[in-house]
């Protein structure tokens, strides 16, 4: 299914629901790690051009802390767990009970990597349970760099069919109602061929209009 522009509202709603269920499980995992409530925003599933993809993170040059897993199995693609730098610092602070450090050392990075791994794992296993598909996350990698430079890694596969990517973005944050939350994004970026497999597993055909 290469022509994503033909996706109906129902298809997009299903993708949002995937984000909802996946990130819901991830938020629960984070909540138990931090031992405090974690809230989630309404997921967003959107077809974006390559140049728009970093916008929700503050622009192409915004420096972000990212854990990336590649997805293998019946469905392939990429899962990014993205934090702004100050959010990452606060997360490390909460987890390690240390003062907020100015720079990231190896221990800090590996803490972020492990959190990203646990949360992405919860997200993907919820997705595997929902669909009954074999979905295997890779070993996580972590990077602190410009959003566009990081995200472009996930665009290599979709780039072969066009200049747009379908991103399922779910944002969550702690400290509901307070300032300076730890805010994180999950970007699920399935490869183009994976959409029809996902829809099929959920009992929807590509041409279903639904409404």
């Amino acid at each position, binding site marked *: 299914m290469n022509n994503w522009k033909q996706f109906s509202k129902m298809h997009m709603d299903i993708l949002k629901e995937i984000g909802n269920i996946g990130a819901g499980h991830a938020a629960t995992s984070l909540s138990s790690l931090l031992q405090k409530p974690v809230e989630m925003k309404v997921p967003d599933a959107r077809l974006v051009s390559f*140049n728009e993809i970093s916008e929700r993170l503050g622009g192409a040059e915004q420096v972000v802390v990212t854990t990336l897993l590649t997805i293998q199995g019946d469905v392939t693609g990429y899962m990014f767990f993205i934090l702004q730098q100050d959010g990452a610092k606060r997360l490390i602070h909460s987890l390690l009970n240390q003062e907020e450090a100015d720079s990231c050392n190896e221990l800090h990075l590996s803490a972020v990597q492990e959190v990203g791994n646990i949360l992405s794992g919860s997200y993907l296993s919820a997705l595997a349970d929902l669909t009954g598909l074999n979905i295997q996350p890779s070993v996580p990698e972590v*990077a*602190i*760099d410009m959003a566009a430079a990081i995200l472009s890694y996930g*665009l290599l596969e979709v*780039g*072969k*069919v066009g*200049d747009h990517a379908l991103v399922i973005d779910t944002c969550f944050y702690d400290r509901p109602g307070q300032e300076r939350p730890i805010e994180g994004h999950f970007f699920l970026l399935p490869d183009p061929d994976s959409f029809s497999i996902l829809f099929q597993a959920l009992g929807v055909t590509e041409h279903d209009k639904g409404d």
Partner: protein
Amino acid sequence: MTKVINVGMADLNVACAPDKIRTTGLGSCVGVVIYDPSRKIAGLAHVMLPSQEFSRGDTNQAKYADTAIPALIEKMIACGANRSQFQAKLAGGAQMFKFQSSSQVMRIGERNVEACKCQLERFNIPVVAEDTGGNFGRTIELDTLNGVLYIRTANRGIKEL
């Protein structure tokens, strides 16, 4: 007035003096800059993949090294640039993540750089400077007035080529 022309991912464009031309957030992508110092005309392509052979129905010429560079040269000549004066600079082609896998995708930055050099050689355009590889992103901006390429990174400051 000086304008800054922004080139997006998998895109290309040309700038004439006194304008500047830039592209942001190069990861494994390669920024190819071709400059004609005699006419002060610069072209920039933000290349994502080494060859159009990777395409599965996509027709964006600017995305692939083997189609972007010929298209860029053509566009520069159409703007009045003198081909015999062309010189190139390259930046990007990083390996942002070091997944332990033998998959070719993992070396895509390196392969993009190789493919760009191969195309530039094909058109007899010398590569006068490059800042490629590593594991970090880059934003580049070329000043058409002097041909200097400014390379900005998240943690390594600014470099001039």
